């Protein structure tokens, strides 16, 4: 599961200007809140709208989970990860460092 692996990245780089934003598209609010509490997630956690207003599908064009986008300081999507495998967080960290700059 991807989300708990993002917590250490957020803790490590938030002071340098990293924001982590997770969007939940399942609409099972109770379950999500439970998951967030169990894993002590402290970054930004948002809940998507249902149907046509669904942001993840209609605006971000994401249809499979998990998928993540890495956005630079100018608001451009520079990296994406479709799916998440053990060890992907290492590459993500490299990319984050690259975008945070020196």
């Amino acid at each position, binding site marked *: 599961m*991807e*989300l708990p692996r*993002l917590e250490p*990245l957020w803790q490590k780089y938030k002071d340098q*200007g*990293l*924001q*982590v*934003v*997770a*969007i*939940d*598209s*399942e*609409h*099972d*609010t109770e*379950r*999500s809140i*439970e*998951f967030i509490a169990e894993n002590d997630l402290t970054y*930004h*956690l*948002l*809940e*998507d*709208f*249902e*149907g046509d207003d*669904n*942001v993840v*599908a*209609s*605006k*971000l*064009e*994401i*249809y*499979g*989970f*998990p*998928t*993540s*986008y*890495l*956005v*630079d*300081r*100018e*608001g*451009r*999507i*520079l990296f*994406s990860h*479709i*799916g998440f495998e053990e060890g992907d967080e290492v590459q*993500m960290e490299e990319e*984050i460092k690259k*975008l*945070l700059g020196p």
Partner: protein
Amino acid sequence: MTKQSWTWLLCFALLSTWGCGTSETPAGDSPTVADAATEELSEVDRAAEETWAIWEETEDPEVKVGLAHDFLARYPDSDHTGDFLGSAVYHYTESLDRPDEAYELVTGTLTQVEDPDARLETQMQLAVLHSKTGRLEELSELASSMAEEHDFQFTDHLELMELATEAGAWNLVIEQAEDGMAFATPEAFKAQWPDFSDEYAARAGQRRNAYCQAYQGWAQENLGQHEAALASFASGVDDTSYSLLGVDETPLHLYWGKTLLLQGEPDAAMDKLNAEALFGSKEAKETFAEAWGAAHGSEEGLEERLWALRQEYSKPLPQFALPNYEGETFESTEFIGDVMLIAAWNPT
């Protein structure tokens, strides 16, 4: 694990691309959990729900396949047959490396299944096993008998194209692609998905053609039909669709690039693979790196090239506003100036 995330897992297992049958329709058009909850749950649905709840709590593939066995022993013939079999087959083959036991489960279940949909899903899992274990003749025979028994939809042909491609059963790929092309029309799409608009159906019909041309082209290249392969890709390219980041939603550009590389045209291969290598599948990234090596003699300069391409192909983050769990609204523009990692997830 829910059906939706299982399907997604299957896509990854088979393809590692967006080229998956389920991407035919946007997310959210299947019945949701909330819909199911408002109806009276049957005994088998309740049992399935309870089993999935235990399933999600464990990471142990041994426990997962055990749960699937238990459920299928009690209810071999239900709406849930395909999901449980598919999940068990995945773990038997990917995590446990015991395909023989998966065969036993699937063939044993098949003798007890009468519902046509459940039969088709069970047979498809048998096809998955034939594909993963390289039983090409059995795969072709099974595909023929399935087509005889069932009224195939496009997605059935597509799934068989994918499985045959994985296995390298090239003649079967071409056969399935040809059959699939008969469904590459707005009318055929509407017949299966009547609720979609004419406009969506028109695009979906075209996209079906791109899928077929992609698989057919790659099969032709593997059969030594080099010119025919290039012609297939060219005739699908206007029909394909692209994601927000410009990645082909079908495997057309991936297989086009792989084909050009095999044909000794690494620069042309990279041209087809730019967006795929940046934002697409691992296979696309690897193929791009291989093409770079073929064109330049080493991997030197590859990282710099990819970084430059990234600037060129990057897209602005679309604006959106969403609530957090406390009801406060978050605006996507709030963090311009920071680096943002946006992760789309679901809790199951």
